[in-house]
């Protein structure tokens, strides 16, 4: 058999056409969306000329401001809480003597990834309705933060755990051997080496929370409109390229965020 390293993927029959189709399906719609954000006409399907006007009106739009603010409050808070929780969980599940129920705990943490989101959404909604009815408790935007934190945890957990499992345990032995107490060994060796994992965990959690729609739509109360909900509300009215501009802004924020965390993670890893 030929050495697989000598096989050039580009020579394989059909590779080019399949690759081109995949790239088109994935990115052409996004590209069209971005192009029409620059359309001077007021239709999202008919090109009339070039303008940045829709970005101007989007940035001056009060509703957009308030949605962006809500989104940032929810996403940032949920990211911080879920990443911290996930970090502690990952450490508690890799850096201790194996305990009874370890694999069950692992399953429970990752279960939200398997449960259809609409089920989680309905369940969360009923849960908040229940505690509101029984105890008269309503945490306002806290409800959304709580809901987001819960579904962000598995996303934050996975890269952190992977990093911990890849890490050479001997480094921690070496720290202990060199008189580091368990806390010092964690602070000076484990944690700094874990930072790239924590960064990618946090980036994932942020992105997942930032564009969540299903759960947010069901749980959000009045005045708790997030950006995805705002866009959803806009497209139910006659659409203008302003929505394209807003979507493009969202996309750029996501790309920027992911790139920055990726670059930081790579620099720390080297």
């Amino acid at each position, binding site marked *: 058999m030929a050495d697989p390293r000598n096989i050039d993927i580009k020579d394989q029959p059909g590779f080019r056409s399949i690759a081109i189709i995949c790239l088109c399906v994935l990115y052409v719609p996004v590209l069209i969306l971005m192009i029409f954000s620059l359309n001077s006409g007021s239709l999202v399907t008919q090109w009339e000329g070039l303008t940045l006007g829709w970005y101007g009106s989007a940035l001056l739009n009060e509703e957009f401001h308030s949605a962006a603010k809500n989104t940032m409050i929810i996403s940032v808070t949920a990211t911080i809480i879920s990443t911290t929780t996930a970090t502690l969980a990952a450490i508690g599940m890799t850096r201790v003597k194996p305990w009874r129920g370890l694999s069950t705990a692992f399953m429970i943490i990752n279960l939200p990834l398997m449960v259809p989101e609409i089920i989680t959404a309905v369940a969360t909604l009923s849960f908040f309705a229940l505690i509101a009815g029984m105890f008269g408790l309503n945490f306002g935007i806290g409800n959304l933060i709580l809901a987001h934190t819960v579904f962000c945890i598995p996303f934050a957990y996975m890269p952190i755990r992977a990093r911990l499992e890849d890490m*050479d345990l*001997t*480094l921690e*032995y*070496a*720290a*202990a*051997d*060199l*008189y*580091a*107490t*368990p806390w*010092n*060994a964690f602070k*000076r*060796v484990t944690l*700094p*080496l874990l930072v790239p994992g924590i960064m990618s965990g946090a980036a994932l959690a942020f992105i997942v929370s930032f564009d969540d729609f299903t759960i947010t739509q069901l749980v959000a109360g009045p005045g708790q409109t997030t950006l995805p909900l705002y866009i959803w509300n806009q497209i139910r009215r006659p659409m203008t390229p302003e929505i394209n501009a807003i979507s493009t802004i969202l996309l750029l924020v996501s790309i920027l965020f992911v790139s920055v965390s990726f670059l930081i993670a790579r620099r*720390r890893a*080297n």
Partner: protein
Amino acid sequence: MPDKPGRNAIEVVDVSKIFGSGEGQVAALDTVSVSIRENEFFTLLGPSGCGKTTLLRLIAGFDFPTAGEILLYGQDIAPLPPFKRPVNTVFQSYALFPHMTVADNIGFGLEMLGKPKAQIKVRVAEMLKLVKMEALAGRRTSQISGGQQQRVALARALAPQPKVLLLDEPLSALDYKLRKEMQIELKRLQHETGITFIFVTHDQEEALTMSDRIAVMSSGKILQVGSPWDIYDKPAERFVADFIGETNFLTAAIAGVSDGKAQATLKSGATINATVAEGFQPKDKATIVVRPEHAKLTAAKGDLSGTVENIVYFGTDTHIQVRLDSGEAFTVRQQNTRSAGCGFEQGEKVGIAIGNDAAQVLRD
């Protein structure tokens, strides 16, 4: 070789380590006792799985014995966590902290001990000089070669001036030439620092050339402790004789044991002198060992006779494999001269002379 008895740095007393439970129990160490003297270069030698690394980990504190005591200058350290033991380790993989510079790695132990910054700086500079790494103090550990990483690992472990330095096969990742250099370097460091070294290796040559004393281990037990010379020339058991160097095993009838010497009658009928380990009373039949370089091939009839089967040239010497008339195999090692051949040919009938002090009776 004179023994220089000093204080014991480490005393391992009846230590057992059992992994697993129930049916799957494995004794990695089985009631092991050994004393390691102050300032000694002590080697734990054995094949993989013999328990040598387990014993080292118990001394370091990465694991705790199932039974027994480990005394460091008389104090039982077995229950202490690693960060409370004045003992440092050089790891097989070096385990340098990748996010710190060479200097920060070396200073880590002192920093954790809470030493003042100025003092750490002085000590780190000293250590860098000791291992000749001054020029690379500011480098990341990923930016230096394997041999340099090895030096940093040594400096890092020596910096806090441990009472005992543990070395877990530290040379196994280096290529042959670098390994030879580091063997000399390690001896020098041990001499200069005066710290007790406990060195783990599976490489018998490394053990023989570097150690003051060697403990040969197999299946969780220590079989023999002694100087390299003792271990090589007076192996007590078949495993020790077989594991260290090449050797010939012969069965012999034993008679007249006195003064540590026995009369051993070989299958060929010849009777030779063989040394017996102190305090050991051999039965009528025993295995004796003769090192290939302690026997001499002769054209005339010797203590043994046989036919040359194979001649292997090794540069410095030649190994001549002889099939004895009794059916056993026997190898003779003969020093080469520059111009002459070994003087024997394949198929030739030869005799083998065994010197007066060449044979040792085994305990098995």
